[in-house]
C-alpha cells in the first residue's frame, strides 16, 4: 500500500458559467519516504492537485487516499497533523502582522500541544535560523528566510507528508540552492514524504525520485529519475519540456 494514492482525480471549476477542467483523470501513487515531482507549465493543473489534497480546490471526481484511508471531506485536525503544505510565494504566505513566534506557535495552540516556547526555538534552529528571529515580523526577513519560516511552520506538527508548491521559484539561484539543501536534509532526518510541484525540470530532477509530467490538466508521462537524465521519455511533450529546460541551454549553443 502506498502512502498517497490518487485515482482518477478530477477538479472542475465553474467560471463565468463555463466549466474549467483544471485536472482530468490523473492517477499516481507516492510511496512512504519517496519524493515525487509534478512538473508542467502554467495551467497544467499541477498546483491544483496539491490544493485538492488540502481541500483548497474541489474534488469533483476520483479519490485521494492517504495511508489507505480516503481523506474526509472536511480535512480537520487529524489531517493537518499528517499533511502540511509550503506555498510558492513566501511574501504572501506569512501573516504580515504576526511575529514569527506567533506564526509558528499557532498550529501548536490549535492542536493543544504544550511547550510551545521550546518548540518554536527548536523549529527555528532546525531550519537554520537564529532563535532571535522569533520576535521579528515577516517584512524584516529576506525571501529565503521567509521560506525557511514557512517550512518551519509546516513542520511544527511533525507531519509525515509535505506538499511543496514551487517552494523556490520566487528565490534567487543561490538562495534556491540553500532551501533545496534544507529540504533534502529535513527529509533525510525525519523520513518525510515529499510531493513537490515545479515548472523547473532541473529542480524537480534534483529533488525527486519519480516525476509526473502534466499538460492541460492531464498526466502525460511518468518518468523515473534515471530515465529523465538519459532523455528516455516517450512522449513528444515531455521531450519538448526537457529540451527547453534552461539546463540544456549551455549544452547546445
Amino acid at each position, binding site marked *: 500500500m502506498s502512502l498517497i494514492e490518487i485515482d482518477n482525480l478530477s477538479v472542475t471549476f465553474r467560471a463565468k458559467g463555463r466549466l474549467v477542467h483544471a485536472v482530468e483523470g490523473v492517477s499516481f501513487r507516492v510511496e512512504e519516504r519517496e519524493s515525487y515531482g509534478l512538473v508542467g*507549465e*502554467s495551467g497544467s493543473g499541477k498546483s491544483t492537485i496539491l490544493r485538492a489534497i488540502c481541500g483548497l480546490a474541489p474534488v469533483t471526481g476520483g479519490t485521494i487516499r492517504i495511508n489507505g484511508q480516503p481523506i474526509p471531506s472536511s480535512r480537520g485536525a487529524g489531517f493537518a497533523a499528517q499533511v502540511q503544505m509550503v506555498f510558492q510565494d513566501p511574501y504572501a504566505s506569512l501573516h504580515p502582522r504576526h511575529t514569527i513566534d506567533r506564526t509558528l506557535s499557532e498550529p501548536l495552540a490549535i492542536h493543544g500541544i504544550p511547550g510551545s516556547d521550546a518548540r518554536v526555538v527548536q523549529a527555528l534552529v532546525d531550519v537554520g535560523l537564529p532563535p532571535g528571529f522569533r520576535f521579528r515580523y515577516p517584512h524584516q526577513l529576506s*525571501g529565503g528566510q521567509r521560506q525557511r519560516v514557512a517550512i518551519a511552520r509546516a513542520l511544527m506538527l511533525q507531519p509525515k507528508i509535505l506538499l511543496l508548491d514551487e517552494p523556490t521559484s520566487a528565490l*534567487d*539561484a*543561490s538562495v*534556491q*540552492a*540553500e532551501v*533545496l*539543501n534544507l529540504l*533534502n*536534509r529535513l527529509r533525510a532526518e525525519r523520513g518525510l514524504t515529499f510531493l513537490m510541484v515545479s*515548472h*523547473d*525540470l*532541473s*529542480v524537480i*530532477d*534534483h*529533488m525527486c525520485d519519480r516525476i509526473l509530467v502534466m499538460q492541460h490538466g492531464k498526466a502525460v508521462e511518468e518518468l523515473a529519475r534515471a530515465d*529523465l*537524465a*538519459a532523455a528516455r521519455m516517450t512522449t513528444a511533450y515531455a521531450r*519538448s*519540456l*526537457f529540451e*527547453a*529546460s*534552461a*539546463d*540544456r*541551454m*549551455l549544452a547546445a*549553443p
Partner: protein
Amino acid sequence: MSLLDVRNLRVTFDTETGPVQAVRGVSFSLGRERLGIVGESGSGKTMTGRAVLRLIRPPGRIEADAMTFDGQDLMRASERDMRALRGKRIGMIMQDPKFSLNPVMTVGRQLTEGLRLRDGLGRADAAAKALAALQAVQIRDPERVMDAYPHELSGGMGQRVMIAMMLIPEPDLLIADEPTSALDVTVQAEVLTILDTLVRDRNMSLIFISHDLRLVARFCDRVLVMYKGRIVEEVAAGKLLDAQHPYTRGLLNCLPRIGGPREPLPGLDRTGAWAE
C-alpha cells in the same frame, strides 16, 4: 565608435536612513552587439538599464562621469531630448506584460498610438504597420489580436505584443529587462528565438538583463556579471564555463542540473573582498 558609452555610473536613493547606492560605479561600452547583464535581485542590473534611459524617479539620483549614446550626452540632455530618444532610438521591453500593457486599450490602439502621434501616419498605414509587426513576432492571428485587450491574451502572446511594439520604431538599441521571466520554459525559448532573430536581422544592439546566467549566455555575445551594484566580471558568452570570478562560478554551480549528483548544492560563498 561605440554606440553607448557609460563611465562610472552611480544610482543613489536618498532614504530616511541615509543614501543607498543601488549602482556603484558601473562602466561599459556597447557596439553593435548583444550584451547580457546578469545578477541576483538587488544587484543593480535593472537600475543600470533604466538609468541609460534616465527612467529613475526622485528620490533616486543618476550620476556618471560620462554617459553618451551615439555622440549625444545623456547626462546633459533635456527631458525633451530624452523623450525623442526613448522608444525611437532606444527601446525597452519590460518583464511582465500584465503590468506593462495598458489594460483598457486594445492591442491595436497601443501599437498604432506611437505611429500616429510620433510618425504622423494615417489610420490605415499605421494599422498595416502594426499588423506587420505582429506577424514579425509570429502571432498567428494578428487581426484578432489587434482587437483584443491585454487580459484576453496569454503571457507569451502579451510578451510578443510588447516586443512588436518596441520594434516598430526600429530603435538602434533595445534594452530587454527580464523579457521572458514571466513565461513558461517552452514559450520562453520560442519568444527569445524570435527576439534574437529580429535583433540580428535589423542589426540592433541589445542589452539583455536577466537573473539566468545560462539564458544570457545563449543569447548574448558578452556578459557582465553584477553584484551589489558593481560589475564583478565580464566574460565572453562562449567562455562562461571558464569564468574565473568566485561569484560567477558560485552562480553557475548552485544551479541543479538534470542528471547531476544528489549531494547538497554548493552554496554561494560571499566572504571574499569582492563582496564588500
